[in-house]
């Protein structure tokens, strides 16, 4: 040690001997000082955040506003136009457009003169601009020069042309014509064309004379192309000159003549009477004081046939008018309507529950018979016996079915007594059964309290009822159900696999080339387009797995009535989405596992715990919040995914839910009968949005539904995420981080 101490001084002189390096000075450049404070980066980064934030918030606010206002009862307007139409309906949207000259063509006279009045000031301004500018004289000068040159050339050529053969002559003339056409614009061609017309027809001898005649004609025509003359004629209001110059300004000079205008999309409906859902009405078309809001204009939302706008004329029972005044009709309407609707719903429920049970039993028996036929052959004794038994039981059950039908018919008969006679704005009348009216809304008569009732009743219908009118009206309950069940099933499928895979990768596998490549593959999997998963899902799950399943368990049914599992369905859709979201879960879980401190694992191992005990008791609980985060991300991604679902089981309209609420009698499980039907196709909100917006027959009317459905989808994903986040917070509280 003493040596070591002694050796220290010996080092000092050595370093002193070395030449001293100059100390590096940090120079401060004036420009750098601002950056040094970080202010520009603060603005840049903050600005980035603000832009992202604004985009997201404005999107959400837009959807929220559009979605929330859709169901508010709009006032019903009556509009009279200058061309004598009268329309009744709701203003659906306002739209700005540019009124152009071309809009004049093909319009009725009343509209045309109105439009010209609107356009005139704008045209005046533009033509005046053209006339005042140098454009006019410049252009005339150019044209004049070109014509003169052409004429001179032709006159020079004339003798040559004259001596040539007739065919050549014709060719030359044609060439001249083409040259003139292509090089000179309309304006000049008018004059040049006249010249050539006189040239082309003449015979060889008189050609020279014809040329000179043409030349003099051209001179005359050019003489007419006088700026001063044009201006004079224009100011005198010469129509021909006016229109020439308007066209000139329009086409050649690219001067826009456009007047910003507003029109409204008027939802008039009454499709069976007018064959139209919408009418466009420009503001100028409406007569002065032509817009009014008649008190008793009423909107009827019907079960079938769309909306009806009109005035109540008579309330009828058994064809007899009991009320004829709108106020009296409206006073009597709610009670009768409610009764009729109750009967209608009762009939529907009888049909669904009892008729449904009857049909299910029949289907079950029929499948059983097919099964017998499949096993023993169609000619076998067993089959014949079973067939006879089936027929017998059909016979026995027939009265039961008759009874159900007669009860429904009785209700329908009762309902058909009550009708309302509506008078459309064009005078046509329509008698509508009360039972077929979902909702009546004399919006102009309603006070705001009653409007709120309508608003909430529409929301209720939207959330809890089946769709009507090819999905563009009614509710989206089946889609909500499908979305939620599919997302939950997907989560149940993806989390265990994802967590197990991540556990192996992080805890068991030895780091190396294989593990790295597997990890890279998983990360890349997250970037595969979702439709690819859809294709894989339909090929692998539906056709291969489902097909095999059908062959083994439902051979008879498949042969007779098509595949059970061998086609798109909720189960396969969930598995496909589970595959899609697997990378998210794996990556998040791996990160959560690697965040568990080494000291905890060592502590557990030092206690004599095995690796698995350590993972189960220490690592997994600690990593659970992180795993939950992965699950939340996966759920959010899966719930919003549409493209693969279109291939593996989401449909426009599913006749049944995947859970048969009226069929608890049957067996549970993955069977074609019973309460749970994971093999059935389902409705999904995301697909519903696509369908409404782009596939609907009346997509214009479905537009507001797109917004409400979007709002609902966002809401459902938010609710599921919030639930998962809450769960994660609970877990985090339990396994909070150590202070060290």
């Amino acid at each position, binding site marked *: 040690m003493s040596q*070591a101490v002694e050796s220290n001084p010996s080092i000092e002189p050595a370093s002193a001997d070395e030449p001293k390096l100059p100390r590096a000075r940090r120079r401060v450049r004036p420009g750098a000082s601002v950056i040094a404070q970080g202010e520009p980066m603060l603005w840049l980064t903050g600005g980035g955040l603000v832009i992202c934030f604004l985009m997201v918030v404005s999107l959400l606010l837009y959807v929220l506003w559009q979605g929330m206002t859709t169901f508010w009862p709009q006032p019903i307007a009556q509009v009279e136009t200058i061309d004598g139409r009268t329309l009744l309906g709701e203003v659906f949207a306002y739209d700005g457009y540019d009124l152009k000259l071309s809009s004049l063509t093909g319009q009725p006279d009343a509209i045309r003169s109105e439009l010209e009045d609107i356009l005139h000031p704008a045209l005046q301004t533009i033509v005046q601009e053209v006339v005042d500018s140098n454009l006019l004289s410049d252009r005339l000068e150019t044209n004049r020069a070109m014509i003169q040159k052409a004429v001179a050339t032709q006159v020079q050529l004339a003798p040559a042309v004259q001596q040539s053969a007739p065919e050549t002559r014709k060719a030359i003339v044609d060439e001249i014509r083409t040259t003139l056409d292509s090089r000179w614009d309309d304006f000049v061609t008018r004059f040049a064309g006249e010249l050539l017309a006189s040239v082309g027809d003449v015979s060889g001898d008189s050609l020279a004379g014809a040329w000179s005649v043409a030349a003099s004609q051209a001179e005359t025509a050019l003489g007419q192309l006088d700026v001063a003359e044009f201006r004079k004629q224009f100011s005198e209001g010469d129509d021909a000159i006016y229109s020439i110059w308007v066209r000139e300004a329009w086409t050649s000079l690219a001067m826009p003549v456009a007047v910003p205008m507003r029109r409204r999309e008027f939802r008039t409906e009454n499709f069976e009477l007018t064959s139209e859902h919408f009418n466009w009405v420009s503001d100028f078309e409406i007569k002065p004081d032509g817009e009014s809001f008649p008190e008793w204009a009423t909107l009827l939302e019907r079960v079938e046939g769309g909306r009806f706008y009109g005035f109540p004329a008579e309330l009828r029972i058994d064809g007899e008018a009991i009320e004829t005044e709108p106020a009296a009709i409206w006073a009597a309407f709610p009670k009768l309507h409610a009764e009729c609707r109750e009967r209608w719903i009762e009939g529907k429920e009888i049909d669904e529950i009892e008729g449904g049970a009857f049909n299910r039993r029949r289907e079950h028996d029929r499948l059983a018979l097919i099964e017998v036929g499949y096993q023993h052959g169609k000619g076998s004794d067993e089959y014949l016996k079973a067939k006879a038994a089936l027929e017998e039981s059909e016979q026995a059950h027939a009265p039961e079915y008759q009874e159900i039908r007669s009860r429904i018919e009785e209700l329908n008969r009762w309902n058909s007594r009550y009708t309302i006679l509506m008078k459309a704005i064009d005078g046509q009348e329509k008698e509508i059964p009360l039972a077929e009216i979902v909702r009546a809304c004399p919006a102009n008569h309603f006070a705001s309290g009653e409007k709120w009732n309508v608003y909430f009743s529409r929301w209720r219908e939207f959330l809890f009822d089946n769709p009507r009118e090819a999905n563009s009206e009614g509710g989206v309950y089946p889609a909500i159900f499908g979305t939620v069940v599919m997302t939950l099933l997907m989560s149940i499928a993806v989390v265990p696999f994802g967590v197990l895979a991540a556990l192996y990768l992080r805890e068991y596998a030895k780091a190396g080339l294989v593990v790295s490549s597997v990890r890279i593959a998983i990360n890349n999997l997250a970037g595969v387009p979702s439709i690819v998963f859809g294709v894989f899902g339909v090929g692998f799950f539906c056709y291969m797995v489902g097909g095999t399943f059908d062959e083994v368990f439902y051979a008879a049914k498949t042969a007779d009535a098509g595949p059970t599992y061998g086609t798109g369905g909720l189960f396969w859709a969930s598995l496909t989405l589970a595959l899609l979201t697997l990378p998210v879960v794996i990556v998040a879980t791996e990160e959560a596992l690697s965040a568990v401190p080494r000291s905890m694992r*060592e*502590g557990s191992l*030092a206690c004599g*715990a095995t690796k698995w005990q350590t993972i189960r*008791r220490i690592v997994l*609980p600690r990593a659970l919040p992180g795993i939950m985060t992965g699950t939340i991300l996966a759920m959010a991604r899966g719930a919003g995914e549409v493209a693969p679902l279109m291939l593996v089981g989401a449909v426009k309209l599913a006749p049944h839910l995947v859970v048969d609420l009226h069929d608890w009698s049957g067996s549970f499980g993955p069977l074609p009968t019973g309460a749970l039907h994971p093999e059935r196709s389902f409705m999904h909100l995301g697909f519903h949005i696509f369908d409404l917006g782009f596939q609907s027959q009346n997509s214009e009317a479905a537009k507001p539904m797109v917004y409400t459905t979007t709002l609902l989808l966002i809401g459902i994903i938010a609710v599921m995420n919030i639930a998962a986040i809450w769960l994660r917070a609970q877990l985090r509280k339990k396994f909070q981080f*150590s202070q*060290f």
Partner: protein
Amino acid sequence: MISNTEQPQSSDATANAAQGDNGKINRLEMITRGEHVDAVIHPEVAKHNSVLDIDNVCLWYGDKQALFDINMIVPDGQVTALIGPSGCGKSTLLRCVNRMNDLIDSVRLGGDMRLNGDSIFSPSVDVIALRKRMGMVFQKPNPFPMSIFENVVYPLRIDGERDRNVLEEVCERALRGAALWGEVKDRLHESGLGLSGGQQQRLCIARAIASDPEVLLLDEPCSALDPIATGKIEDLIDELRGDYSILIVTHNMQQASRVSDFTAFMYLGHLIEYGPTVSLFTKPKLKETEDYVMGRFG
């Protein structure tokens, strides 16, 4: 045993010879040059029964050798401290005892250790069963994310013990043993992470002694604690003396002198001197040891 007693004497003699030569032979420099150095082991060590025998233990991290032929015994029921400058291998040696070094892929071992006569390094040893026979406390308190009660009975839980009475009894005994019972007896079912740093470390000690270990390994248990908490832990070690054989790694020489019965001084993977704490700190046989304990280097 006999060879053990003879060996120190012989190395003692060499050491004396080395020192006698005007201090020109310096063990630390020899080690730096990569030469072999014999440890000086005081004969008093051999008077005790050993709980742990360390025979010629060598250890490599990849190509780099971290321990060189360590030979020592850990006396039963005594507190043995390992001291030495950073990187001298004392923690590595401690972690060899319960084979925590197995967790590092590149580690190779040589020699053997015997816990009450049973081999530790032999490939046929069940590591899990081996670790159940000892307790370990780490540098940083590492209570598990569960209640105080569950933390203490964790070793029993993993053994599948479910009897509530047994668990409660063990919990109380261990917490009393770790001098924590009075502070936490009313909140046994609150999270162990809510305790203060010193309490957490005592909780870890309670966990380590809950399974009645044959040897207790403490890896710088006070390095992350404030002086008051350190004092409590030291008092606790004092109380545990006699009931448990304790092997403690420490950076703090005062701590070693306060709590331990025997002290081993290590340097760059070599055992330099090993003997009763009193004699090692007051009249060490080697100049190097004296320099270190006087704070002249390291």
